């Protein structure tokens, strides 16, 4: 069996969505309908019109590092990955056609040959052997150059693939395949005016022998006559004020597109000096630009994990937004209403990201100031955010000037507006504290909402809504209710108990317990040495426990009834995350360069679940995401995943999660969606209508799809056509028979399904151009469901036939 399924462990740590879509330039299919981009170990296929994620090409076991259309067949795409394989896919159906094993780490893939890069970054040509077998080992490799840049945009193929241009630092090399000769040209590091001449990107003109290079100081040079060692020449154009990140020629070569940190797409007219057009304010800095083969669509990938689809008339027509994970300062949070993951998004925004659908929902502008895309500016950034338990309030802290001494910060409170279904600014507190806010939390009681903030000025403040009597307005603003401190010590963390009857604030080594009702300090708990780092109360049956971690590798559990230490364990905990729906608490421990996860109940010191070596980086952010419907997994060690799922963000900004076997199955089955009819874009309407269309085609060969495509005014009268049309929709008896069969099939074992799948795969690979498609199990199931449900209306139609 050749179709590679990843063998699924009972707990698998999986990269769960939100992976980068901006690592490599996306490609647009020849008909401009699909957009493909490498994302994690998948190749995702999007529709260019609706920006909808259609499906993904799954099969690589590591980061996909390059994709390229098959020059011989524009419906196929090559992809390469760090796992050392090059795969050929049919991207419309999502079928793997061929696997080439090349045992190097690919950095990226270019048009005709493949560049593979082990540690030293070499440019190699890999001969892909032609053979009918699905898995082939490509052995023929020849090194073109070992002096290439680690940045793949510094390498480009020239006119018709006759030469390849690659640059590193200050040297541009052109390798002519036919003559097997390299010409190299170098620039001075700096000139008198302080220009930085290092190359940053390269593009080659499709029809002329002209190489465009981008430079660190924002210049674009157009090189010509580079066949000569001396008589080469270049012209310089300068608009970008910072490094040019990417360059791209349109397919006819009439224009050159460039982009950089300014997030302005610049279109230079080729050969007309400095005539140019601009498309400003695209978001994050532009990392890649790609153009469809007809030149009608451009797409740009941005540093904020976004792909923008732009028409050639310089109008943005679509945005594909991934999860922004650069510069996350806030904790991972779950919006209690939408169950979306909330964290820093665009600069100055909070993003709401649906983990279930792996889709960006919306951005909430917190800072409400224009962000200037320029390196070295100190601008406001959201650093803290917290939701209350119902999701009707959101508190945010934005600050600027962390690096310089003059710190500015605002505390903002946002109310959820039912009418607009979004958060509306309620209160801005300019000087909430005299020093920066370390942490904040909402009380967890349903009746009153209260926010507690702790700051480096040694105080904690409680904020309440409408407590200020002299505001005579309808709206209730937030104001300070209580200011507390403890021996002028610097607070480190705060936490409310599950019923909000207690507030724990840790001051260095001391935990103080307060009653929020009377603001009376009830007791102090202390377990020196070590400053308290994390605090959390137990939930449900364990609510009498308070957990704390210290900097001196101690995890302590206090019993609040006896005010005594219940147990403690010597473990270095970098993050303590309680599950809101169960007693479970997850602790991430970083020891000897890898992170372990423990899940335990505070009442019993023995962990429920231990997973060693989850990842090699420290974990500082984690969140339990409640499931929409609880799993009923009986396995004892996976029970903790039944009600909610644990997501965590590593320092490399990988969003990881634990998944169970049953989930994996579901993911797999859902990914094998119905084959999409080529002529219709995937819209919600299509999903409704498209099923009918398919059903017609599958069930009745005499159906007339032409009927639906012909304009109404050239058709004969509806009465003439009606009977024919309705007849074509009717289900024949054979269809019922099938239904019975498939019902039986449904009870078949998992193994058989796999076998079935592989069979199908093999068949498709054997003859790619075979048009008729056998339905997969999932497809059949879907079909069956459709058949079962909605044909009652048809009867009415037939009855009313004259």
């Amino acid at each position, binding site marked *: 069996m050749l179709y590679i399924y990843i063998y699924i462990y009972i707990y698998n740590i999986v990269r769960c969505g939100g992976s980068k879509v901006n690592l490599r330039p996306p490609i647009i299919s020849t008909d401009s309908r699909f957009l493909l981009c490498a994302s994690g170990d998948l190749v995702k296929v999007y529709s260019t019109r609706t920006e909808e994620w259609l499906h993904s090409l799954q099969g690589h076991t590591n980061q996909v590092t390059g994709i390229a259309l098959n020059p011989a067949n524009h419906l196929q795409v090559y992809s390469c990955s760090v796992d050392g394989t090059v795969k050929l896919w049919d991207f419309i159906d999502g079928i793997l056609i061929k696997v080439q094993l090349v045992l190097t780490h690919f950095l990226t893939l270019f048009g005709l040959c493949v560049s593979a890069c082990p540690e030293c970054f070499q440019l190699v040509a890999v001969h892909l052997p032609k053979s009918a077998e699905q898995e082939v080992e490509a052995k023929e490799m020849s090194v073109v150059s070992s002096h290439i840049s680690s940045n793949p945009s510094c390498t480009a193929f020239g006119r018709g693939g006759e030469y390849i241009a690659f640059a590193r630092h200050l040297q541009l090399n052109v390798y002519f395949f036919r003559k097997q000769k390299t010409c190299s040209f170098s620039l001075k590091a700096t000139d008198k005016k302080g220009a930085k001449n290092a190359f940053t990107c390269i593009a080659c003109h499709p029809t002329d022998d002209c190489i465009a290079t981008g430079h660190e100081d924002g210049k674009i040079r157009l090189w010509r006559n580079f066949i000569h060692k001396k008589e080469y020449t270049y012209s310089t154009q300068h608009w970008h004020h910072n490094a040019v990140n990417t360059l791209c020629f349109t397919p006819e070569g009439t224009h050159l597109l460039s982009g950089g940190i300014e997030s302005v797409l610049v279109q230079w007219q080729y050969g007309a*000096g400095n005539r140019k057009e601009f498309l400003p304010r695209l978001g994050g800095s532009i990392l890649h630009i790609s153009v469809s083969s007809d030149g009608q669509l451009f797409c740009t990938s941005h540093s904020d994990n976004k792909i923008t689809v732009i028409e050639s008339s310089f109008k943005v027509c679509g945005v594909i937004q991934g999860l922004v994970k650069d510069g996350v300062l806030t904790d991972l949070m779950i919006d209690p209403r939408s169950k979306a993951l909330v964290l820093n998004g665009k600069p100055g925004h909070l993003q709401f990201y649906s983990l279930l659908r792996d889709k960006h929902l919306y951005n909430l502008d917190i800072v409400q100031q224009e962000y200037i895309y320029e390196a070295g500016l100190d601008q406001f950034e959201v650093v803290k955010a917290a939701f209350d338990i119902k999701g009707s309030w959101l508190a945010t802290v934005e600050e600027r000037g962390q690096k310089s001494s003059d710190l500015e910060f605002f505390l903002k409170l946002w109310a959820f507006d039912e009418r607009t279904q979004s958060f509306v600014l309620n209160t801005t507190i300019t000087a909430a504290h005299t020093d920066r806010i370390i942490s904040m939390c909402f009380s967890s009681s349903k009746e009153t909402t209260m926010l507690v903030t702790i700051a480096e000025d040694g105080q904690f403040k409680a904020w309440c809504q409408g407590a200020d009597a002299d505001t005579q307005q309808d709206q209730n603003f937030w104001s300070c209710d209580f200011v507390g401190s403890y021996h002028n010590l610097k607070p480190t963390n705060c936490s409310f108990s599950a019923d909000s009857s207690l507030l724990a604030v840790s001051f260095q080594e001391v935990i103080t317990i307060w009653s929020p009702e009377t603001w009376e300090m009830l007791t102090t708990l202390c377990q020196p040495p070590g400053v308290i780092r994390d605090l959390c109360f137990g939930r449900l049956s364990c609510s009498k426990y308070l957990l704390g971690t210290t900097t001196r590798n101690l995890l302590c559990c206090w019993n609040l009834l006896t005010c005594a230490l219940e147990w403690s364990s010597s473990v270095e905990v970098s993050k303590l995350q309680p599950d809101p729906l169960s007693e479970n608490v997850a602790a991430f421990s970083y020891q000897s360069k890898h992170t372990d996860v423990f899940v335990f109940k505070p009442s019993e010191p023995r962990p429920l679940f231990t997973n060693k070596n989850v990842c090699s980086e420290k974990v500082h952010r984690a969140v339990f995401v409640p499931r929409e419907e609880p799993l009923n997994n009986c396995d004892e060690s996976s029970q903790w995943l039944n009600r909610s799922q644990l997501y965590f963000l590593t320092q490399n900004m990988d969003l990881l999660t634990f998944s169970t076997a049953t989930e994996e199955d579901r993911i797999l089955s859902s990914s094998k969606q119905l084959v999409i009819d080529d002529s219709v874009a995937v819209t919600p309407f299509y999903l409704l209508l498209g099923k009918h269309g398919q059903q017609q085609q599958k069930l009745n060969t005499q159906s007339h799809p032409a009927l639906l495509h012909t304009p109404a005014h050239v058709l004969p009268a509806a009465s003439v056509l009606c009977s024919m049309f309705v007849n074509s929709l009717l289900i024949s008896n054979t269809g019922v028979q099938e239904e019975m069969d498939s019902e039986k099939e449904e009870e078949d074992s998992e193994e058989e399904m796999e076998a079935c799948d592989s069979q199908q795969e093999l068949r498709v690979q054997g003859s790619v151009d075979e048009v008729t498609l056998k339905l997969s199990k999932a497809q059949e199931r879907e079909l069956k469901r459709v058949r079962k449900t909605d044909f009652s209306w048809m009867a009415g139609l037939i009855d009313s036939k004259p």
Partner: protein
Amino acid sequence: MGEFKVHRVRFFDYMPSGIRALAFNQDTERMAVARMDGSVEVFHCSDRFFQEKIIPGREQFGIEGLSWVGERLFSAGLNGGITEYDLTNQKVKYTIDAYGGPIWTIAGNQQGTHLAVGCEDGTVKLFEVNEDNIQFERNLDRQKSRIVSLSWHPSGSKIAAGMMDMIQVFNVETGHSMHRMLADRGVGTSRSKECVVWSVVYLSDGTIITGDSVGMVKLWDDQTGTLIKSHNVTKCDVLALSVSQNEDSLVAGTSEGIVVQFQFVSMVLGKDDKEWVRTRTFRNHTHDIRAVAEITTAVVSGGMDAQLVVRPLLDKIEERSAASALRKIHFPHRRLVACARKSGLMLFQYPGHLELWRLGESEGKGIPGSSLFVKRNPEKLLHLKVKGEDHIRCSAVSPCGEWIVYSTASTLRLYRLHCDNNNISITKISKLPKVLSSANQLCFSSDSSHLFSASAQSSVHLVSISQSGCKFVGTLKPKSGSHQAIHLLAASEDGKWVASANSDHEVHIYNLQTRKAHCTVPIYSSAVTAMGIHPATNCLFMMHADQQMFEYSIEQKQYTDWSRTVQRKGLHRLWVERDTPCLNVMFNPQNPSHVILHDMYMLCIIDQSLPLPDDKTQFYNQLTLKSLTEEQRKSHSHAFKVCKTFKDILCVELMPDQSLVVVERPLEDIATQLPAPIKQKKFAT
């Protein structure tokens, strides 16, 4: 190196004149430069752009165009005349009126048979170039507006003329217009503002390239008279165009001070379909570029900011050397300052007048590097205006400070200075000998008793001057050789020898006692830029444009041992790579082994007793030496001691009291006196 008291003179307000036209002669490798004040200079391109010849201008004599015909140089100007220059004697040969009003442009054909001038009245006039003059042949079809630019087709059968709003192509045979191409006035500019076609270039393949006031460089086809391509180069005017000899490169100068290069490159490598593509941009000027010329290995440009910029094209140069560096020529390669050493007077030569200053005096001694208190300010004694319209060609003041002499193209005047206390008066010496009608170079003998006047045929007239008057003594003539004008004279301290150097690189030495030619120094390939006769040894020390130095013993008629050593060991790389010629050679009487030299950027003392540096030793070692002990210093020091304290030096002179006079003219001061350049938006301002 020794300590000197330095008079740092900054009151010489010399203003170089803006460059108006350039003409390059491929065969002789000479570049002719016409300036706004009507002067014409000839630079030798392969001899490090040494300024070989200067033909001073006249009042109200603006040159608009220059053209070489063979080795003859013609100019035309707004006074309506065409002028031919006598390059041997460095003067105007004749001027004839074209009778077409002011002339805006002049162009000679490649065959060397005809000159075409474009006149204000709209005619293109053809002149036949004869052996010793030019003769009007005929007019081409008269146009309505003035002819601003002209270019011959290399075959000589067609002429393209740039005018207001249009370009006309004439057939030279018939004189009729073949095509009329309209240059549009451009978008964004007002409709009423006409488009001036400032420059036109006709290529052998029939392409006409124009540069206009809209800022476009346009390519036209002369077969169909249609526009092929247009390049928007600038927002303001494209003033000058020049194409390389093999027609694969074109440069355009704009009024923003940038030079844009276009190259004729094949769009697909190895194929023949070539296109003009804009490639490089050179920004070396601050003001309008009025003239550009692409020579074999460089782009030469000049404009309102009065500097001649030679920008090498590295792709055309075989190997990188000092000759291929970027070169900016600000000052003439002649001395404009004369110094009366014994009386402390300075004579400054301006185009139209002379100024005589007395140096100031200072008090006491200071530590090296500090400035002294000025006891007496320098004072301007005399402002001597030139009679007539001609500009001064050369001038001199006698060492005793009693005599002042200057010469224009037509007259030579000698004045005697009376200086009693604060009353300064001059008397003109009348009744000069007839031979002193005009001089190419003037020099007094060290005892101020004789005046040497270099004149035609490379001869030097010797005139004795005294209270009673002046008397012609004799003429020193070289035995053989060329008749090029003399540009340098050097008299020996003991009054026995005088040496002359002419622009054919010949150096003749005459014995003043016998009044005969003594000998001729072997001719070196590079021009002599400065020379001096050593007071003690009577050795002639010569500096050449390629920075080589020779010492020639007059008495033994051969190069000295030191000179041979220098030639054998070679000079240091950094010395040879300097890009301005040495302009003066002086000797320190206190220390006979010292030779003092200066160029525009530095002052150098060569100690002939010390070893010569080789390429491995540190050349500029003054700072290193300072940090070493006395013992180590000896082993590290070498013959060249360079002082870069002073910049933009016009002249350095050593006074008898061991003080140095350094005349500086800071380029910033010149820049402030120039008219304001076109305002350009600069990023982040």
